[in-house]
């Protein structure tokens, strides 16, 4: 433990001159590199994506960095590297850990040979996810020691440390980030890379082969490791006691710690760099040193409950929300509610109006026509994770469900097996998602002979997370050309008899193909075939413009939800005519295809 001086202090002594600004994700990657990591594997997922992307910016001679098919595969790849005695990293978002957890649950029994670090990034506030789960439950479930950096410097330092700890405790180590940490840039002092000679594979079947007898023997080791780690924490810099006013003591960790320092700098603070296991004795001592004890943590009251379980009196979620991302304002509000701080004078706000600007699909997004067609077919659509989830809202409004990565096909199978659905049952799934976890479900559909249609929205990239390659783009994380999976071959090999590719920018072909697919008895797969407008190659057709003279303001084109189409200042029949933003338009011509007046034409001359 590190007991600071009584003065409020910065968590670092970073001199601007010797440091560089880095995001949390950049720092995670740097930390891993400095720690001498040899193998990194991940599946993209906001907010964790840039960790592996940044790791790949370090020399290929230093390390391997790769996109894996899904988080479980990535985790297994890292486990394999650890078996080989090298340091290995896997990174994922919180829901990715659900996928990887199966491997992790065993890895924790086996323990690391080469250092094994798993960075998991939670998304409090759900900026870009399907839930707000708190990954620290996995720490306890898997009994994986979990470090919680609060800024980029700590992200680097803790990651580096995690590898050491992994090897020292022969345990996987989890480092937890949050969206705020991952995407905040702050000054970071960097170090050099250490290169360790590979330890090599250690033949130890009793430990490495998780069969019941071996597993039974391993479980007690976990408990022992938990105790050892807690002891380690007592002498570690990961726990920092910052003495202050003894009337109020605050236990905090991760980014909320910075909010506490911002809002109530005078308080005594116990900063936890590790959320599992907890240093129980230090906590007791700290509690004893202050009159009132608070814990400020994001999402679930994990620390709070464990402290309370120690028999201590502590307040946490009573004052600080359990839902969403914390902020200085919320932390302040909590302390005001707790009677610690005085409320600020209510200042009258500025008198202005708000213009809603929700996320929209891109102009020319090839997904648009698929959902327009599905809407016309009046299909029951099982959605999936990707940009196309936006088709659930206005104006496309054509996705009925969205559960989790790769769930759409399985959901459709269940819906069909349940019977009673009179509409055509369709699963829509992206290319990356299909490879991630759609294939087993598709096999299931063929195997169980179900009458569903699968629309494979092949935009040839992992678009939602910012354009990452995958096995069907023919390029690796580092941009090397590799074998490109052919979806038609793959799907046929699974046993799907009815597979067809269709141009996403040909609306009627879409509609016709979709109709035929839904009328086919059995599993039919339609591949919507146009690349994402942003990646990897920017496609531009002739841009379109509206002939205002003939526009009758029916606004049928507005149904595309294309952000380049908006109202003009001209009117017809009480409605706004439309115009097209020439900078936004990529010339997909879908609007021209739905225009009932032929008023949308290419600016070709």
């Amino acid at each position, binding site marked *: 433990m590190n007991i600071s001086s009584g003065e409020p*202090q*910065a968590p670092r002594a970073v001199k601007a001159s010797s440091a560089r*600004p880095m995001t949390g994700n950049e720092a995670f990657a740097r930390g891993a590199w400095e720690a001498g990591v040899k193998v990194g594997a991940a599946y993209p997922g*906001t*907010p964790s994506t840039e960790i592996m992307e940044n790791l790949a910016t370090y020399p290929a001679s230093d390390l391997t960095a790769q996109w894996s098919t899904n988080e479980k595969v990535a985790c297994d790849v890292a486990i394999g590297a650890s078996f080989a005695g090298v340091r290995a990293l896997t990174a994922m978002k919180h829901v990715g850990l659900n996928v990887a957890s199966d491997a992790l649950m065993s890895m924790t029994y086996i323990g690391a040979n080469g250092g094994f670090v798993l960075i998991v990034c939670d998304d409090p506030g759900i*900026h870009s996810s399907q839930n707000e789960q708190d990954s620290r439950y996995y720490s306890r479930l898997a009994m994986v020691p979990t470090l919680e950096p609060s*800024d980029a410097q700590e992200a680097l330092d803790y990651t580096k440390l995690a590898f050491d700890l992994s090897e020292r405790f022969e345990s996987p180590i989890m480092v937890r980030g949050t969206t*705020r940490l991952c995407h*905040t*840039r*702050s*000054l970071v002092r960097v170090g050099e890379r250490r290169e360790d000679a590979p330890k090599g594979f250690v033949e130890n079947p009793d430990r490495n082969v998780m069969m019941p007898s071996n597993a039974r023997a391993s479980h007690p080791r976990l408990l022992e490791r938990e105790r050892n780690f807690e002891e380690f924490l007592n002498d570690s810099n990961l726990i920092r006691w910052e003495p202050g*006013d003894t*009337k*109020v003591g605050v236990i905090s960790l991760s*980014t909320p710690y*910075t*909010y506490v*320092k*911002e809002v*109530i700098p*005078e*308080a005594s603070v116990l900063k936890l760099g590790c959320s599992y296991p907890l240093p129980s004795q230090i906590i007791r001592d700290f509690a004893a040193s202050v009159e009132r004890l608070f814990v400020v943590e994001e999402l679930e009251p994990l620390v709070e409950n464990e402290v309370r379980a120690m028999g201590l009196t502590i307040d946490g979620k009573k004052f600080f929300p359990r839902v969403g991302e914390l902020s200085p*304002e919320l932390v*302040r509000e909590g302390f005001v509610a707790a009677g610690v*701080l*005085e409320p*600020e*004078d209510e200042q*009258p706000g*500025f008198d*202005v109006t*708000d*213009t*809603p*600007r929700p*996320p*929209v699909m*891109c*102009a020319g997004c090839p997904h648009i026509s698929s959902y327009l067609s599905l809407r016309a077919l009046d299909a029951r659509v099982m959605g999936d994770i990707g940009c196309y989830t936006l088709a659930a809202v206005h*104006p496309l409004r054509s996705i009925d469900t969205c559960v989790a990565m790769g769930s759409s096909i399985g959901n459709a199978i269940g819906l069909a097996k349940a019977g009673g659905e009179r509409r055509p049952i369709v699963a829509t799934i992206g290319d990356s998602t299909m490879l991630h976890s759609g294939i087993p479900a598709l096999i299931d559909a063929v195997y169980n002979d179900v009458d569903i249609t699968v629309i494979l929205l092949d935009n040839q990239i992992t678009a*939602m997370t*910012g354009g990452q390659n995958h096995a069907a783009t023919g390029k690796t994380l580092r941009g090397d050309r590799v074998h490109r999976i052919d979806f038609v071959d793959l799907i046929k090999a699974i046993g799907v008899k009815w597979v067809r590719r269709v141009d996403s920018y040909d609306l009627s072909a879409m509609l016709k193909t979709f109709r035929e697919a839904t009328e086919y008895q059995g599993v039919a797969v339609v591949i919507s075939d146009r690349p994402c407008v*942003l990646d990897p190659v920017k496609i531009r057709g002739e841009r379109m413009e509206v002939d205002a003279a003939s526009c009758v303001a*029916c*606004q*049928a084109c*507005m149904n595309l*939800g*294309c*952000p380049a*189409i*908006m*109202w003009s*200042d001209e*009117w017809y029949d*009480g*409605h706004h005519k*439309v115009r097209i933003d020439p900078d936004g338009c990529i010339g997909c011509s879908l609007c021209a295809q739905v225009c*009932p007046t032929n008023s949308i034409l290419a600016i070709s001359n």
Partner: protein
Amino acid sequence: MDMAQKVSAETAPGTTPGATPDTTNVLIVGVGGQGVIMVSRVMARIGQLQGFDVKQSEVHGMAKRGGVVFSHVRFGPTVWSPTIPRGKADILLALEWAEGLRWLNYLKKGSGTFIADTRHIVPPFACLDRTRGAKLGYLAEPPGVVLDQVADGYALDATALASALGNHRVSNTVLLGTLSVVIGFAPEIWQKAIAEMVPPRTVEVNLKAFEAGRRWAAAARENPESAREHTLRKPAVLPELEARDFELRITPEWCKGCDICVKMCPERCLSLNALNIVELTEPDRCTGCRICEWLCPDFAIDVIKTLPETASR
């Protein structure tokens, strides 16, 4: 509660309560694709070059383009929270007008500086309401209304200034020029940071844009009223149409149940009943767009639009 007293005593105008008083908070906002992140990284770099601790925080939303983008930049001797609390921004730099208004309440009421491009980027959702005579959902107040409320305000058509340089995309750098006049620091430091952050082949135009922004700001400071006059974009006044009523009149005896209207209705208002005759089942969604009327081969649907009795026409 001594401490509470103490904390509250520190709450004085012009200071950030609870935070290190000399932290500078700059909130940079705009629309995806405008270069908010570039501006914030330049700002952060400036802070670093001045020897300050710096934090710059952004959140990638679902929208890759056209969505709300914001970036918090804080610099000072010590910076704790990466985010700027509401009402604590010293400077709000908006690359788009409505975005400036969205975040205006993050600005310090009595002392904050507001710098905004008067450019309007109308989001598609502002056109969501397709009912008759619907108003555009983009309802940003004109610059005058805003500048009257802030302590210090600059509203300029940075996009036009940038376009004059031949690249409308460098409007963000124009705004940086204006910002540099407000914040101070030597122009060379700004130029260095800009040159580091922009693509190499755009350095020249970006530096020109920076100068244009500085010149504009200097002129505005000298003669605030004329600058205001000069730069204020015409407010987006929307035509008010008489609220007309409409009615979808279906002639069931003429309908042959071909399903065209049902399938082609953009709002899915119509369906065929048990007798295969069309019915308006979602009247609230109907916008009176007339597509069903046009496409009914049987003339079974009429959209009747009526002016209110008071209307002159």
